[in-house]
Structures are given as structure tokens and as C-alpha cells.
């Protein structure tokens, strides 16, 4: 506590920027508040860093309009998104819905994989698994139309200039989609290997898709995305005979930034490798 004025020091810092006077307080001092602090206990700084030479106001600094106050904040920048994501997660969990955040660069085959997955799951002998989709793109309904053609429920989110989905968009998408209990919701993020990695949507898992036409060094070039992945799908492996793509190097790169991450090579076109993906899905649904 400030011995002179009795203010409760914690949390707020009062600064005269012209004097670089650091002094934490939780209230604003009027401009005539010019007492010396002879017995002042430093609040959270070493005493030698707690300079008092600027505390007695000079004429210029005493002008109220020139006074600024520094307020300690300690606020996570993404707190609002993370809170909304937590609410989405609670809502989904309560309904037994498995939500997966699908992320990749544009053109990796996310929508093709989803279309194939929806048809294959509907045709499989296994327990019925309802699937619906939240599509994220900057513009157009093209992907949503492809999903709608399968008969699955789908909602398109167009982000306009936005380069990623955030938890608020997904909350709106889920409300519009109204997925059934004990089902799977695929959230197809905006095609982008950078920005979506930072935004929690409330999903149960992040699935990152990379195609063999992109080059095996992608995991090392975009480490944040691959570090965030719970599963990596290596798509378009039917094209491997025509490309110089080293699968082992790609897998090693992914595990370099995300030790132990599961990587499933597959082709949404030929169907190769898809059973392992469906097994993974059914395991996650539980």
C-alpha cells in the first residue's frame, strides 16, 4: 500500500511518460497529487527501479490533458475466441458430437475427401454415423453445394476477407446446422496453412491434410500448423508414381514438429488408405 495516500498499489501503474515514472496504483492520481513518497514500499519492482524524481510535477506535466496512466492488463489476446471455443466444445460434448477441424492449403482435396467420406460411411456395414459439415471459404457456395449433393446437411460460412474460421463463426454455423446427437461434424476451414492454426474452434481434434502434389517439405515450412495437428492425412497418393515425393521425408518432417503424430497416407480418388481414416473416425466417435 502507498504509505502517503493509502491507495492499494496492486494492478495499476501510474506513469508520467515524460519522466518514465513507474508506479503501480489502482486509481488515477489528480494532477496536483505531488506528494513525495519518503517511506514508500516498492510494489512489485526493485527499489532502484522505482525512481521518484519525476513524481513532483513540473508545470508542463501537471496539465491534466498531458497526464497518462498506465494500466496493467494481463489479458490473453485470444481470450474471447478461446472462451467461445470452450462453449462450443461443451455444447458439442454434451450432445456426443465429434467435431473435427479440417485444415490444409487450398487444393489439397479437403472437399473431395469429405464427399467420399460421406458416401463411404453411408454405404458401410458399420453402425450408422450421421455426418454434417460446416464449410469455410472466403467466398462462394461451391463447396457447400458439393456437400449438399451427397444429401448431408451443410452450412457455408463465407469469411469475406477473413483468412480463417474463428469460434464465433463456428458457433453461428453450428446453430444453423443443428447437428443431431451422436454424430460427426466436419468443419472445413479456409484453405490456408498459416492462420487457422491459431484459432481454437471448439473441435475435438485438428486434422491437417497435405497432398503429395504440394511437396514433402510442407510440414517444416509451416510448422505451426503441423505442430497443432492431432492427425495428418497425406492425400492424393494415387499420384505418387508421377511425382518425386518422398513420403518418408514428409512423415519425418511432420514428426519433427509434432513428435509421434499419426500420419495416414490415402487417396480420396482411388480409395486407397481410406479404411484407416474411417477406423480413426469411428474410434474417435467411441
Amino acid at each position, binding site marked *: 500500500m502507498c504509505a502517503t495516500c493509502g491507495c492499494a498499489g496492486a494492478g495499476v501503474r501510474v506513469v508520467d511518460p515524460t519522466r518514465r515514472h513507474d508506479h503501480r496504483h489502482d486509481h488515477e492520481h489528480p494532477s496536483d497529487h505531488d506528494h513525495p513518497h519518503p517511506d514508500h514500499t516498492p510494489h512489485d519492482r526493485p527499489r532502484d527501479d522505482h525512481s521518484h524524481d519525476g513524481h513532483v510535477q513540473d508545470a508542463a506535466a501537471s496539465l491534466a490533458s498531458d497526464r497518462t496512466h498506465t494500466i496493467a492488463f494481463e489479458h490473453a489476446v485470444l481470450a474471447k475466441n478461446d472462451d467461445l471455443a470452450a462453449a462450443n466444445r461443451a455444447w458439442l460434448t454434451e450432445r456426443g458430437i465429434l467435431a473435427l477441424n479440417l485444415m490444409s492449403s487450398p487444393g489439397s482435396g479437403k472437399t473431395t475427401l469429405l464427399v467420399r467420406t460421406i458416401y463411404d460411411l453411408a454405404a458401410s456395414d458399420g453402425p450408422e454415423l450421421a455426418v454434417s459439415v460446416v464449410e469455410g471459404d472466403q467466398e462462394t457456395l461451391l463447396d457447400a453445394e458439393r456437400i449438399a449433393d451427397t444429401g448431408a446437411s451443410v452450412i457455408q460460412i463465407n469469411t469475406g476477407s477473413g483468412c480463417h474460421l474463428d469460434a464465433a463463426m463456428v458457433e453461428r454455423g453450428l446453430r444453423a446446422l443443428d447437428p443431431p446427437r451422436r454424430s460427426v461434424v466436419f468443419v472445413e476451414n479456409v484453405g490456408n496453412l498459416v492462420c487457422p492454426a491459431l*484459432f481454437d474452434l471448439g473441435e475435438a481434434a485438428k486434422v491437417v491434410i497435405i497432398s503429395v502434389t504440394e511437396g514433402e517439405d510442407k510440414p517444416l515450412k509451416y510448422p505451426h500448423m503441423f505442430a497443432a495437428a492431432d492427425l495428418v492425412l497425406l492425400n492424393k497418393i494415387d499420384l505418387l508414381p508421377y511425382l518425386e515425393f518422398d513420403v518418408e521425408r514428409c512423415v519425418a518432417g511432420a514428426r519433427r514438429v509434432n513428435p*509421434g503424430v499419426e500420419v495416414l497416407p490415402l487417396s480420396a480418388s482411388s480409395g486407397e488408405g481410406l479404411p484407416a481414416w474411417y477406423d480413426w473416425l469411428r474410434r474417435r466417435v467411441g
Partner: protein
Amino acid sequence: MHELAITESIVAAVTEKLPGRDVRRVRVRVGRLSGIVPDALRFCFELATAGTALDGASLDIESAPGRGRCRECGVEFDTDDLVVMCECGGVDVEVLGGRELTIREVEVV
């Protein structure tokens, strides 16, 4: 350019907590493994603050080091890179710190 969304979040958080205040400076702490590019953040800050209570405010960026721990030999070290190798040759490295992205303090009139 997720830094634009990040700066918009900064503006929203500050104006929500300090309604009606004229903001002169914002200090943020950005971890070196957070995926945020400080220069991009500065660029976007000017755009995102225009016409708000933060218009004309300066942005101080305090950098926080990345910290990793090798799961093979247990040693801890600073790192600015997610693609990292321990001195022992281990590549199984747990990230302990450097992903933070917080508003530390705000200077108001």
C-alpha cells in the same frame, strides 16, 4: 494475415475493458513461438485502430523467448524455432513456453 484478426481482438479487449478512454499506448507480449510476426502486428495495428479509441496509439511489443525441453535427455533450452534439435541430437522436444500472446498494459489519458 491472422495478425489483423489479432489486432482487432486487441482493440476489442481494450475498448471493452476501458470504455470511453483515450488510449495512447498498448504493450503486448508476443512469444517467439506464437506464430505472430511482430512487423505484421505493427502494420495491422495501425489499420485496426483507425477510428477507434486507440487511434494514433503506439504499440510496444515485448518479445518472449521460446523454451523447449528435450524428451530424450531432459535438458531445457531457449529456442526461437519450432523445428528444433537438442544438442544431444534428440528431435523430440516439448515446447514449454513462447506461445503466449497477451496484452500487458495500456496507457490512457
